[in-house]
């Protein structure tokens, strides 16, 4: 490219080197000036291209900055907005922002009936407005002055920003990409999901999980087929939601071999058939490899059935949502209970015995970390390596150390072996174990330890059933899958019901981020079949049940457990 510049009445040429430099610089500048990645930082983290925090003014006189002032705080990472009480935060994805707004009945119905709305919000939803498309100039005006392209004032909740042109360029470039296309795993007729199962898992549990998924999908897909076949039958305005109707297709991703190879196997399965999200899942050992894979590809993963989740800080929410913090949560709850129930003055040495496995190490490490420093110094770790620990092992591991508190992070066989060496002289010894390692049954507690052993118990105690449980149980009976492993079935059922609720909320905005946001929003209002006493998430929260009981075999009801602590939240 060469640029011709004419002097008055006389043609002339810009030197070729200058023209080339200008052209290259221009191309580079255009690329830098509209950098969606820099726009993403502004949007999600509240950090300007200069590295300075975003600053804004809220409600006229409240200064906010950084992450609090980021767009994602209210409009959420997906850009599809949120609602809370009387405050409705609108969607600002590229296709919606940079096009004329024409209210759509499906979205309006969802807005009206999804959540209870106080009066002003209800009025606002009932009086939808059109709006001219934004462009960068009108967006800058909206951000700075709070006036939309039609001259209407934005809500007081919308902060006022003073972005420079460079940052406006970045932000606009990012907003144009936000929600621009559905995420992978969805086509016009089907949403594809996967569940991950590794070799080495309990086959009965695997069967219970897969049978539940199969029955749920069968029921759901029949409903979808019926709606699609009979478009004119539209009770409760169902026809409005035909745009959102998709069959669900579930792919079982079997993993084999060592866990170090799982990510590559998952990668291959995904290449073969991209899925929108992973649901449930059962693997031998830690869930970490699957967690990391989901993180890398930003694939939502809902409620894997694992005692070894990846426990992450919630400043950077992961793509995986777990029921609990697993064994780590149990150990932390026990540490808190011990500090309350066994006052410092009367407490001698503390011993924890554990198997040198992922489960054992996780429990022992978390228990130590959660102890106050002075107690942790008195805590002695004893890993067990032998297949069947000898009497000599127990003598050295426990009896010679004369602990006043003994934690046995062990399974039924090891606990039984220990009980045979437990003497009456040790009756004052406080004993604890994990119900998760013992299969949550009192049958695993040796007779000699009954009445002495406390168990960490992260689920609802037997005998306190939720009303919804009976409805779900009858559904299982109707499907002919009401056999063993009820906890696996109930948790899988809840995962699928929650997915259904979240997708209904999304209508046809198939964004993975939005899916996770809808999951966060919906869980607390859903009927809980009751495996966990309370399930709740919030923006960025990734562990739905947050506490644990300490329980013991009931004295007056053989075979039953009773809580010896309240619900402990570490």
């Amino acid at each position, binding site marked *: 490219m060469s*640029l*011709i*510049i*004419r*002097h008055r009445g006389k043609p002339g040429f810009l030197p070729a080197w200058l023209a080339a*430099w*200008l052209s290259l*610089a*221009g191309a*580079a*500048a*255009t690329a*830098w*000036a509209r950098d969606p990645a820099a726009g993403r930082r502004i949007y999600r983290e509240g950090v*300007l291209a*200069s*590295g*300075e925090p975003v600053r804004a003014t*809220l*409600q006229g*006189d*409240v*200064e906010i900055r950084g992450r609090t002032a980021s767009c994602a*705080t*209210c409009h959420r990472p997906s850009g599809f907005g*949120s609602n*809370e*009480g*009387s405050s409705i*935060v609108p969607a600002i994805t590229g296709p919606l922002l940079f096009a004329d707004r024409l209210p759509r009945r499906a979205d309006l119905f969802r807005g009206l009936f999804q*959540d209870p709305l*106080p009066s*002003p919000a209800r009025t606002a939803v009932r009086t939808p407005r059109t709006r001219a498309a934004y462009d960068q*100039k*009108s967006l*800058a*005006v909206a951000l*700075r*002055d709070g*006036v939309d392209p039609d*001259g*209407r004032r934005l*809500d*007081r*909740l919308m902060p006022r920003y*003073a*972005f*420079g*042109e*460079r*940052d*406006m360029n970045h932000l606009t470039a990012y907003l144009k990409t936000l929600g621009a296309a559905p995420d992978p795993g969805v086509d016009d007729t089907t949403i594809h999901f996967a569940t991950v199962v590794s070799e080495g898992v309990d086959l009965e549990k695997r069967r219970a999980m897969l049978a539940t998924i199969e029955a749920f999908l069968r029921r759901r897909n029949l409903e979808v087929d019926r709606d699609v076949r009979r478009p004119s039958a539209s009770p409760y305005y169902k026809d409005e939601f035909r745009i959102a109707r998709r069959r669900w297709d579930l792919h079982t991703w079997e993993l084999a071999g060592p866990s170090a190879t799982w990510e590559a196997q998952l990668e291959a399965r995904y290449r073969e058939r991209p899925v929108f999200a992973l649901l449930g899942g059962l693997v031998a050992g830690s869930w970490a490899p699957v967690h990391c894979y989901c993180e890398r590809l930003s694939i939502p993963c809902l409620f894997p059935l694992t005692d070894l989740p990846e426990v992450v800080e919630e400043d950077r929410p992961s793509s995986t949502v777990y029921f609990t913090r697993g064994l780590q949560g149990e150990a932390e709850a026990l540490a808190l209970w011990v500090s309350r129930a066994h006052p410092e003055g009367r407490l001698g040495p503390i011993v924890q015995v554990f198997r040198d496995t992922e489960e054992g190490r996780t429990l022992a490490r978390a228990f130590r970390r959660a102890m106050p420093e002075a107690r942790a110094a008195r805590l002695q770790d004893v890993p067990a390596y032998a297949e069947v620990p000898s009497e000599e092992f127990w003598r050295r591991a426990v009896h010679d150390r004369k602990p006043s508190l003994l934690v046995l992070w062990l399974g039924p066989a090891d606990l039984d072996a220990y009980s045979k060496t437990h003497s009456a002289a040790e009756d004052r010894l406080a004993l604890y174990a994990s119900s998760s390692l013992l299969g949550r049954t009192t049958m695993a507690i040796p007779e000699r330890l009954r009445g002495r052993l406390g168990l960490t118990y992260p689920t609802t105690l037997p005998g306190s059933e939720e009303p919804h449980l009976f409805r779900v149980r009858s559904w299982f009976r109707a499907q002919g899958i009401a056999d063993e492993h009820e906890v696996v079935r109930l948790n899988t059922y809840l995962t699928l019901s929650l997915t259904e609720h979240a997708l209904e909320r999304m209508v046809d905005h198939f964004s993975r981020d939005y899916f996770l946001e809808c999951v966060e*929003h919906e869980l*607390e209002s859903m009927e809980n079949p009751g495996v966990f006493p309370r399930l709740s998430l*919030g*923006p960025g*929260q990734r562990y739905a049940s947050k*506490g644990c009981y300490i329980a013991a075999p009931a004295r007056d009801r053989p075979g039953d457990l009773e809580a010896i602590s309240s*619900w402990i*939240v570490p």
Partner: protein
Amino acid sequence: MPVLVIPTARRSVLAGCAWAAIAAVVATTPPGRAAGAGDDPKAPPKAPCCADCEACKAAAERLPAAARYARTAASYKVPNVKLLGADGRETSFPAALDHDGPVLLQFIFTTCAAICPAMTGTFSSFQEKLGDEMKHVRMISISIDPEHDRPERLRVFAQRFDAGPRWAFYTGRVEDLAAVRKAFDADSANKMWHRPLTFLRPRRGASWIRCDGLMSAAELIAEYRRMVQK
């Protein structure tokens, strides 16, 4: 020195290139170094703007003001339940409110994506603007998500909003905090449905002023002044 006179058709091309060159220089400026007025967050955007014109401003002024808060007076029976402070210490709810001067109270949760940052920001701005007078005031923020908002999370949240020594954050047991919210007619089945409520009480034993809706710091200060001057 020859003067360049450029025909109109070419001006835009050259202007584009020159702007690109300038932009390239700006874009290659190392991070941390001021790169021009366009990067100053306090500088107004360069883009021409219709809201700057008087006609648009006038049009905006004619629009009805956004919904403000509703103000009512109310008496609440304070339940005798335990709260857990951000410092990890337990206290009873009546003790937390037992203050002879003005008390301001809000219900929030730390992961809230919409109204809590705004409400807490108002409290933050209020304490800053009140200055010395804050020594007579007690501000209380109570979590409605107690299982998640443990004391350490409350401490981080308080720091994020520069909470001063007269501003306390509390969590506690789910049942106890549900009783507190119920007593203040501020309960909801899902924390995502909670309302932007701010409560003010001038002195021990007096009734509460209940403000339902988001408030600016100036509005909260006005409510406070009106209350203490009575």
